[in-house]
């Protein structure tokens, strides 16, 4: 027993846990990979691996109610493509997803009854996951499920949950539905349900690894991970993309792709001048990456568009330019062109004034005290 405890402290996963997963069809290698990816993503020491394995193993699967409102199902898609463990394992073994419009077998009244049952049975204990923004204009008529508005559903389900996770930029900050002119009055989950404990996992889509890691954290420690001022977990949103970017050396050197497909772009130079918003965006894309850690936008040659930042559709555009357009000027006018114009106009105006003043007579002071030199 003492030996086992020592092993757990060293981050070793107990043999019988590995064996149990093997009998369920998850190889030791895959399970260890899962635990190490989770430990690394959460920025926990390697000695926590054993504890994470134990927490995932324990029979404390939290019931999950997954609601989708004004969204594109992109976050569900990303989640279903989570590779560690496979989506099926996640859904069947590791979480108890009692309600999810896209993947549940039940429909209509049956589905609503399942949701209600979970809410009543596990009041204050289940996890609510929200995908998509919540339209608040005109009492929320722009999005209704089973005759009830998204606003009412979110308030009821999130209000009675142990914790709410807003997945994707729409649920976290309003995202694309809340972009100007925001005709439906779309708001984020934390705005719609002010009293609830909401953790935001923005991104378009969110990174499934971060969602899994957040849930693993909840299972291991009984609470959601530490968040920043925007309600985002620090483990995933604590650093700028720019500061972990694999193209950073080219940025510091001064080597930039000037156009898609040019020599610099083909050599993998920095995408800063193509409007990359990596320097403005906090996310762990460069380290966790997407699709089984295969790639992420900057690695594949496209600048970051800042999709996980608040109001990214309005504030990060134009996506292929460094700076926003100057309000009130033409689309092609850049801040520097207008600025140069201001400086040039000043120089011309004062130059003209100078010529006029130089020719001007009779405005000299103390001219009576001026004596001429030979």
């Amino acid at each position, binding site marked *: 027993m003492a030996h086992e405890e020592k092993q757990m402290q060293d981050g070793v996963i107990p043999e019988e846990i590995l064996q149990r997963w093997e009998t369920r069809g998850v190889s030791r290698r895959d399970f260890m990979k899962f635990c190490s990816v989770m430990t690394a993503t959460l920025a926990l020491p390697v000695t926590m691996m054993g504890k994470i394995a134990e927490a995932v193993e324990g029979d404390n699967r939290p019931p999950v109610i997954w609601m989708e409102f004004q969204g594109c199902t992109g976050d569900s898609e990303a989640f279903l493509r989570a590779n560690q463990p496979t989506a099926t394992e996640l859904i069947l073994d590791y979480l108890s997803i009692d309600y999810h419009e896209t993947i549940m077998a039940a429909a209509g009244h049956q589905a609503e009854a399942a949701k209600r049952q979970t809410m009543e049975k596990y009041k204050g204990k289940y996890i609510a996951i929200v995908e998509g923004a919540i339209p608040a204009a005109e009492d929320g008529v722009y999005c209704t499920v089973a005759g009830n508005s998204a606003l009412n559903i979110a308030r009821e389900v999130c209000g009675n949950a142990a914790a709410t996770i807003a997945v994707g930029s729409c649920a976290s900050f309003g995202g694309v539905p809340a972009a100007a002119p925001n005709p439906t009055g779309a708001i984020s989950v934390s705005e719609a349900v002010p009293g609830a404990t909401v953790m935001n996992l923005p991104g378009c889509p969110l990174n499934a690894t971060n969602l899994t890691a957040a849930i693993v954290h909840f299972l291991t420690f009984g609470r959601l991970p530490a968040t920043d001022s925007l309600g985002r977990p620090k483990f995933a949103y604590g650093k700028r993309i720019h500061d972990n970017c694999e193209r950073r050396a080219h940025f510091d050197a001064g080597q930039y792709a000037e156009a898609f497909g040019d020599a610099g772009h083909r050599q993998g130079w920095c995408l800063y001048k193509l409007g990359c918003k990596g320097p403005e965006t906090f996310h762990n894309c460069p380290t966790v990456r997407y699709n089984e850690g295969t790639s992420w936008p900057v690695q594949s040659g496209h600048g970051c568009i800042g999709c996980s930042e608040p109001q990214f559709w309005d504030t990060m555009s134009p996506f292929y330019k460094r700076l926003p357009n100057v309000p009130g000027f033409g689309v092609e006018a850049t801040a*520097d062109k207008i600025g140069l114009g201001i400086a040039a106009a000043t120089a011309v105006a004062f130059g003209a004034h100078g010529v006029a003043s130089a020719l001007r007579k009779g405005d000299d*002071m103390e001219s009576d005290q001026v004596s001429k030199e030979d």
Partner: protein
Amino acid sequence: MLQIRYVWEWPVRLTHWFNVISIIVLSVTGYYIGNPSLSVPQTESFVMGWMRVVHYGFAYLFTVSVIVRVLWMFCGNKHASWRAFLPWASREGWGHIIGTFTYYTFLRKKPPYVVGHNALAAMAYSLVFVLFAVQVVSGFALYGQYDPNGLWASLTAPFLSVFGNQALRLTHHMIMWLVIGFAIHHVYSAWLMDVKEKNGTLSSIFGGYKFIDPKDL
């Protein structure tokens, strides 16, 4: 008889020249940071790196210089005082504002004769101090993003959350151009007054002395 008067005390002159140097360096490096167009063939180079290091170094110098100058508004002589920057607050000041404006627009023969700042210049400087403040705050807000748990990030967090970092970046660029526009105007007006007032305006910012005829005041 002309008197020699000590108008600009040394902290005023020193902060003035620190501001000049930092504005030039910050504008050049800042323009490069916003629009890096030097050709750099070697990946081992550190061109953007050095530009940013220099930009941040001079940003600190500029910030300290502006703060010292603002503090001196409460310790220095009457020409350095904060009161000198608010000419519209007094009846006499209003007279000088109108007088200087009508002189600049060729409607009046001679400018009002003053020892310190002329009234329009003082108004421009109050606006420039506001621009400096916005520039310092937006600059450190953008700079502080390298460490979201750090001092600068926590001090500037309200500005970032209200305006967003892209709007701050745009503001930071636009103010650079406004300050350049101001610098053009400032050098021109100093030259004009040096010629017309004959009181040593240009040399006074180096030595501090102006040549004043009290009977004209």
